[in-house]
């Protein structure tokens, strides 16, 4: 059940800001640790014969990248909660980074186990993972506080400037 989308974050402002902050720390930490572990990989053109080296290095960097993607999930969910959007939207927005974290950390192992190349996981799982978010966004747009044209016109004409609180708080 979604909480009421209180616009000014009175209830969730601090928690959401902490969520964004911790997520950013995890994301930056994961990126930096991963960069230390993974040497810059060359393109495979022309053929260098260095693929095994890349795979070995990548296997060390993968957990760090996965952790960083978890941080990204926290960041996007925190940002949406900070904007006082419904919890279900925040969770749905975290889904693509969570899928990314899974693929980054375990992608090669999953491919080996299932025999399905990683490209199919990216195109079949990661690419469409935002669909849940789109379905929910369709449900909530513009119910969570966006003024309709009529409301906006009424507010602008009748209410004193800066006092139009009926636009705040979304559906009650």
């Amino acid at each position, binding site marked *: 059940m979604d909480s009421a989308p209180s616009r000014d974050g009175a209830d969730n402002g601090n928690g959401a800001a902490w969520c964004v902050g911790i997520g950013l720390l995890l994301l930056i930490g994961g990126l930096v640790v*991963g960069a230390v572990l993974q040497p810059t990989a060359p393109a495979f053109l022309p053929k260098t014969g260095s693929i095994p080296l890349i795979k070995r290095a990548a296997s060390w960097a993968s957990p760090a990248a996965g952790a960083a993607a978890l941080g990204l999930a926290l960041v996007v969910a925190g940002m949406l909660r900070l904007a006082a959007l419904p919890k279900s939207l925040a969770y749905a927005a975290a889904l693509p980074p969570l899928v990314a974290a899974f693929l980054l950390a375990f992608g090669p192992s999953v491919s080996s186990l299932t025999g399905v190349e990683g490209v199919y996981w990216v195109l079949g799982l990661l690419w469409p993972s935002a669909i849940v978010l789109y379905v929910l966004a369709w449900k909530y747009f513009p119910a969570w506080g966006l003024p*309709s044209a009529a409301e906006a016109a009424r507010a602008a004409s009748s209410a004193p400037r800066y006092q139009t609180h009926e636009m705040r708080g979304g559906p009650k």
Partner: protein
Amino acid sequence: MNTSLARYALGALVVYVVLCAGIAWWSARRTHSESDFFVGGQRLGAFVSALAMFASTLSGFGFVGGPGLVYAHGVTSFWIIAATPLGFALGLLLLARPLRAAAERERVISLLDVVHARFQSRPLRAISALAILLGCIAYVGTQVLALAVAVKLVLATAGVGVSMPTLIVVTTVFLVAYCTFGGVLASIYTDVLQGCIMVVAAVWVFIAAWQTFDGGLPRAIDILAFDSEGAVGAFGVMGPLAALSWFVIFALGNVGQPQVVSKILMLRSSQSLKSVLPMTTLAYTLSALLWIGIGLAVRAAVLEGRIPALRAADDAAATFLTAFAPPTLAALVFVGLLSAIMSTADAFLNLGALTLTHDLPMALTPGLRARFKRSGKRRLWPARGTTVLLGAAGAYVALVASRSSGPLIGLLGALGWSMLAATLVPLLAIGLQLKRVSSLAAVLSVAFGLVANILPELLPQLRPGAIHTGALSITVTCLVFLSLNAVLATSPSDRPARDTAELDLP
């Protein structure tokens, strides 16, 4: 490119130019005020806005650079495609409310109007405007250069030799002409035309790429896997850090692209947002099929020995069209490429003119807007004049870049997507949502975002290795803003910023 292909491409070019000119003429007749020029009178429908939003996101990079990346690095660049739907959603979800409230209550015309209403800081408006302006000049310059290169290629195959400086001037004049007379309406409606061309071309190319192999693209993937498992692995040859970097840049970065999110201000009604989000993403997703199809097909064809190895990865698209596509498709893709370049360039020309005539003057001269309102002046001709000025600056950058292979190209790249994202994401995605904000924290974070993007291009030893500079600069700038704001906005003397639904616009 053979002669018949060149003939088709030239024919398509002529039709395209005539259509764009017609749209510009039609738009010019409907542009009477500053609001018409910059935000289309705030009367755009969902379909038009969605196509414009998508078209200004996908530049020539998607048509040329994207397939090249797949050819050279395998699956890594697919993470850009996977991140973009999330980016569109984040941009609209986070910014729709504050921007629509501003658009419908106060008829604001600029993204920085909304930022200013929140932070009440002219220094912040000035430094943000500077960042946007730098981004605009860099984008317009690179797009003009790309446009000139594309036209030169077609003219050369038709036996017509034209020098690069001439082509840069001619393409800039055409671009500036339709943006100057038609304002954002011309830009938006040509974007719709361009967006439709891109989608049709991309889907057709994907089908052609599929038909190139007996078993379709799965067969191409098998060929790639046989040669190098890493290339078709979960994160391609560049490794997990590069894949994640791109995911971060295009998911979070989309929120900070003024040419994209400012389209929210142009909508007729908030109700349209319901349809804008899925339509924008559907159009982008279909266009991305070109990126995937050409990249995989050309690499597999090279490995099979059907075509020789490419001299440069960016030749992938041209090679595919020459070797595997019928001339009509090649001509359509050529026009699609021009569309992708021009739709991005015109969005930035309009944005840059808005920054020069509206945001910078208001940041530097308090009360300017009130004076204009009192005098009832229409500020249409300054807007048109600055569009010309900005086009000239872009052409100059393109001319210099065409003669330089040094750090200028890299610098122009750094001043694009990542710099706009690093400077604006903290303000828009976090600042507009926080209960209490510090304008000093915001100014410092924008300055940090600028330095964090430009410095690594000037001092290569500062580049963070396997991570894309942009990913690090966006995330660190957000953290800098959040941390500084936590410290600076808690002072008892620092009044809470107004809700963006309670705008205090000049």
